[in-house]
């Protein structure tokens, strides 16, 4: 007790003794492991809740799609999260790439600077506000679009709609996820493309490249790792997003909506948790949601770890 006090005083008065340094190092090192403790804590405590659920529901908890006491299965939600992410990727990746091509290779410096700030501002908009906007502004427009898609491209399976109801569809939910992903992916791709070494661009120009061939054969292959990593970071964000999706997606367990992206109803693990939490009828239902959270965490952790490994391997990007 008294020795700790002495050490503390040493640190305060910064005596030349190394004891102060040792304490300082220990405190800092302990703090640095917060991240590990939290990650381990989440895994252990949520995993602890997932065990009894798997014991009572069996593997059906992951492979069936039902939310009807006493049977519970979140397959539809797991698949739904994936489907929404794919829709979001299809919209967000080309948009982000083109946006960063514009900022890096086409726009004058001053314009690019303004755009960079606007993209950062877009990233700063809270998801609950995007959800609000999606519910009142995007959805009506999106329903119009989906009706047209169905009218003209209805022969393609993904654009089939038998109910005539275009609200609460995976398309709209995926679209709002795409809008959340665009600033995240763009900030990485812009930086990756901007780091194409000038001597390679010079070499390509001296060989009579066009903008397309320079991108295709020089800039994109050079930044491949960073680009993939950036996309995966955006994917991780999309998988875990809860509130924006909550307002525009109708949660449906059965039947699982596998590919009718403009048909009302779909799934998302994160949204399931929030939407069922308020009406959870007892400790067991809460446990089910905690178990669902565990599998969501495992999925996003995997995507993020892989994304960061890829990004780190291709050179550290400033946040």
């Amino acid at each position: 007790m008294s020795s700790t006090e002495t050490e503390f005083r040493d640190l305060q008065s910064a005596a030349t003794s190394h004891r102060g340094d040792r304490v300082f190092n220990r405190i800092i090192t302990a703090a640095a492991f917060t991240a590990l403790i939290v990650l381990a804590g989440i895994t252990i405590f949520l995993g602890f809740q997932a065990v009894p659920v798997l014991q009572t529901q069996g593997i059906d908890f992951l492979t069936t799609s039902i939310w009807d006491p006493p049977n519970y299965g979140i397959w539809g939600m797991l698949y739904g999260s994936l489907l929404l992410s794919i829709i979001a990727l299809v919209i967000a990746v080309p948009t982000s790439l083109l946006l960063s091509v514009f900022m890096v290779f086409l726009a004058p410096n001053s314009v690019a600077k303004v755009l960079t700030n606007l993209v950062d501002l877009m990233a700063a908009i809270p998801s609950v506000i995007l959800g609000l906007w999606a519910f009142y502004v995007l959805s009506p427009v999106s329903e119009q679009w989906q009706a047209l898609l169905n009218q003209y491209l209805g022969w393609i399976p993904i654009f089939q709609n038998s109910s005539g109801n275009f609200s609460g569809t995976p398309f709209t939910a995926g679209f709002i996820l795409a809008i959340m992903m665009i600033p995240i992916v763009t900030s990485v791709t812009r930086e990756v493309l901007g780091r194409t070494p000038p001597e390679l661009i010079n070499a390509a120009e001296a060989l009579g490249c066009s903008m397309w061939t320079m991108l295709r054969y020089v800039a994109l292959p050079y930044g491949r790792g960073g680009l993939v990593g950036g996309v995966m970071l955006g994917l991780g964000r999309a998988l875990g997003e809860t509130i924006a999706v909550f307002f525009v997606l109708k949660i449906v367990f059965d039947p699982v909506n596998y590919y009718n992206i403009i048909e009302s109803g779909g799934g998302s693990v994160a949204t399931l948790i929030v939407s069922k939490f308020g009406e959870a009828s007892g400790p067991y239902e809460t446990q089910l949601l905690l178990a669902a959270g565990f599998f969501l965490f495992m999925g996003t952790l995997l995507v993020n770890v892989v994304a960061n490994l890829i990004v780190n391997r291709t050179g550290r990007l400033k946040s």
Partner: protein
Amino acid sequence: MSTAEFDDVKIEDVQELEKEIAMRGTASATEMEARDVSVWFGKRKVLEGVSIAFPKNTVTALIGPSGCGKSTFIRTLNRLHELIPSAALAGEVLYEGNDIYAPEVDPVHIRLKIGMVFQKPNPFPSMTIRGNVLSGLKLSGLKRSNHDDIVEHTLKAAGLWNEVKDRLNHAAGDLSGGQQQRLVIARALAVNPSVLLMDEPCSALDPGSTLKIEETIRELSSEITIIIVTHNMQQAVRVADNTAFFLSTDGTPGHVIEQGPTTEIFGNPQDQRTLDYVNGRFG
């Protein structure tokens, strides 16, 4: 009376000089010519009134201390200069008698006819050796069927064939610096240019590689016009038919002090500053 005679002589001199300049512009042996080229970056003038003719299938060395605008100058010859946002230019650059900066000229066409090798070897790291040689075809969209022949021919011309013929599909990054620079030369040759610009191609290389590249330059000069920027005066003497000496003093724009056959510039320079420079007294 004697003054008048003196004046006459001077006028004759000037006329002769003008005639010579005019002749070089029209002579069929001249492949490229810069006429009164000045260059700016923003408001700063970095090069002033450069006029040099480059006869067909010769090697011309551009020498001078660093910062005198040599590298900037050769980038005006294949229209790479204009890629720098603040760049500006005055004067004319003629290729086969036509101004390469005329509005109807496609810069891509110019860059294919006038190839370039840079100071630092810059093969494309994501491509194989073979891919690098053929990259010019891909990048410019040229269609050629005999890819294998092109690879072999250009790598031989660049003096690299024997070293890499068994590993054409290896990454270009595995090669040594000197090999990479010769690969880059092969890459430039693969699109069949008639002029090759070289911006201090040996400054990042060891003496052995430098010698190999100089050999390559001598061999290439029988079928291609080469313009080489170099800091190394022995190199200019070894490879160049003609030499131009650039100088920029006290922040004034760089300009050509003296130009002519390499033997004259090094053996019998007319300007004191040239004499000082080639004897290593500054720069």
